[in-house]
């Protein structure tokens, strides 16, 4: 029949650059980008690099309540306007470009707490106009937090706090596995807020260490952490979380992050050359992930990170 096509289920698998462009275009409508994982684990760094490479600007960055390397890198690349993350640190040291940009007034870093961010994502995921919070007292953060307000509790009669829905325009996640339909499996022990973010966001793009056959998903549905319904695109990216960890596949590359932080500290002290070279070499330079892997030390170097997960 005219116009008839064979109807088959559409795969959500795409390439890194296509995913980055879709994210960039969506973020031009509304700049709220949310990043999965926490600190140095499960962060969608390849997607972040991809987004920076296709030229995002003026972003408002959300995350689970703690972030470091990726946010600092986005700030170093000049892509960020506001940060809505309670804690920004590399854990063993502070984030150099985050601090410099905030001190210079180039980036607004809001004072927030974890319950505000998680509560806002919960309100969005649950489809309700706000989430009550009743555990905030005494901190100066309450004087500045732009997302909460005081309300009269209809049940207790007390003044409590409430946060409206946080609805990211785009969320980037990194999981260990997915099928071609976009069903994600986190094999790491910790999944943090990834599932919540997926349900709270307009668009979800995930990188995974590998795409698995459909049967892997169907044989163990309880292991699926994010059903494909919530996922718009999935990209297979070996070492897609690097230099953060993707347990149990590979550990964080602490040496890489430390070397980056040294360049950031140098930039903070006035010498940006090393930092600019880092961005050119690792972010805007590589034409694909294979290329990136070469610039950070090659497959043999990264294989050490795999071995690192088996210690402990």
């Amino acid at each position, binding site marked *: 029949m005219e116009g008839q096509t064979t109807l088959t289920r559409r795969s959500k698998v795409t390439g890194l650059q296509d995913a980055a462009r879709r994210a960039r275009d969506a973020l031009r409508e509304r700049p709220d980008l949310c990043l999965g994982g926490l600190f140095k684990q499960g962060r969608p760094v390849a997607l972040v690099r991809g987004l920076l490479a296709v030229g995002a600007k003026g972003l408002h960055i959300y995350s689970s309540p703690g972030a470091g390397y990726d946010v600092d890198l986005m700030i170093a690349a000049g892509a960020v306007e506001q940060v809505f993350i309670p804690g920004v640190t590399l854990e063993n040291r502070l984030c150099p470009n985050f601090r410099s940009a905030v001190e210079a007034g180039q980036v607004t870093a809001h004072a927030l707490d974890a319950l505000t961010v*998680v509560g806002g994502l919960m309100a969005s995921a649950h489809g309700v106009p706000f989430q009550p919070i009743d555990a905030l007292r*005494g901190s100066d953060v309450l004087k500045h937090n732009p997302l909460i307000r005081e309300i009269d509790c209809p049940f207790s009669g007390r003044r409590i706090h409430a946060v409206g829905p946080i609805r990211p325009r785009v969320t980037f996640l990194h999981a260990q596995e997915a099928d071609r339909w976009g069903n994600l499996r986190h094999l790491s022990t910790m999944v943090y807020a990834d599932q919540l973010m997926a349900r709270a966001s307009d668009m979800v793009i995930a990188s995974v260490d590998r795409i698995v056959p459909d049967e892997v998903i169907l044989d163990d549905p309880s292991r699926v952490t994010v059903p494909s319904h919530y996922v718009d695109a999935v990209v297979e990216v070996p070492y897609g979380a690097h230099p953060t960890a993707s347990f149990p596949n590979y550990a964080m590359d602490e040496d890489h992050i430390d070397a980056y932080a040294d360049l950031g500290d140098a930039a903070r002290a006035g010498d940006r050359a090393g930092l600019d070279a880092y961005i050119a070499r690792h972010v805007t330079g590589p034409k694909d992930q294979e290329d990136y892997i070469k610039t950070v030390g090659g497959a043999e170097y990264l294989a050490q990170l795999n071995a690192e997960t088996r210690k402990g």
Partner: protein
Amino acid sequence: MSAAISPLEQMVVVLARDLADGELGAAGAAALVPMAAIALARELHAPNLTVGGEMFFNPEPGRLYPSMLDDRALGRCEAAETFIELFGHSHHGLEFFFHSGLQHDAYGNINLHHVGGTLHAPKVRGPGAANLSYCHTSTRFYICPTLHTTRNFVEKVDFVTIPGHLSGPEAKRVAGLTNEGPRFVVTPRAVLDFDPATLRMRLKSVHAGHTAAEVQRHTGFDLGITQNVPQTPLPTEEELTALRERIDKTGTLRA
């Protein structure tokens, strides 16, 4: 046990002794000393102490890690949770938690946001902090910075990220901080607690090899030392054996 007791080992032992059997508690971001203290308490006198409230329960790491937000430290644990459950824990509270910051003041308030300037025009920006609630929804918390200088112990913090005792009992009451708050402070030099009447910090004991005068010299506010300050009890053989042979086999606390 010939090797000298390290400052971090002394801190761990002081903290471990204060944790009771059957309690529920956890550590925040900087977890090396707290997690060692919890492990030591579980090993020696608190087998029913539960580590929980930070998205994992009862980890059994092969060695100490500086961050507990690390799957290597959690690969073997009893259960994992997510930020939704952390939301609940933050409201229900724990028995104990641990905090430290860029600045700590005379009332045990902690600053992680900025030193100098204002929040949005800071002289020096800090990392901020995620969990602001455990400090008062939990029964108590401990302050355990691994530095003790006039720069991080100041009369008044520039920004109250984590409220301690604010400016004393009346301020706590007004702010609705009804729990104990910071019970004591342990640093590489000393143990400091709070005067029950004023809730102002005072020197409780100095670690072996340190003096009260030295602690005062490295503290940015008056500790009101008027009498002899006792020495912090040293780790016992049993504590040190458990710590070095079963918890910190790689010697991280002595590095």
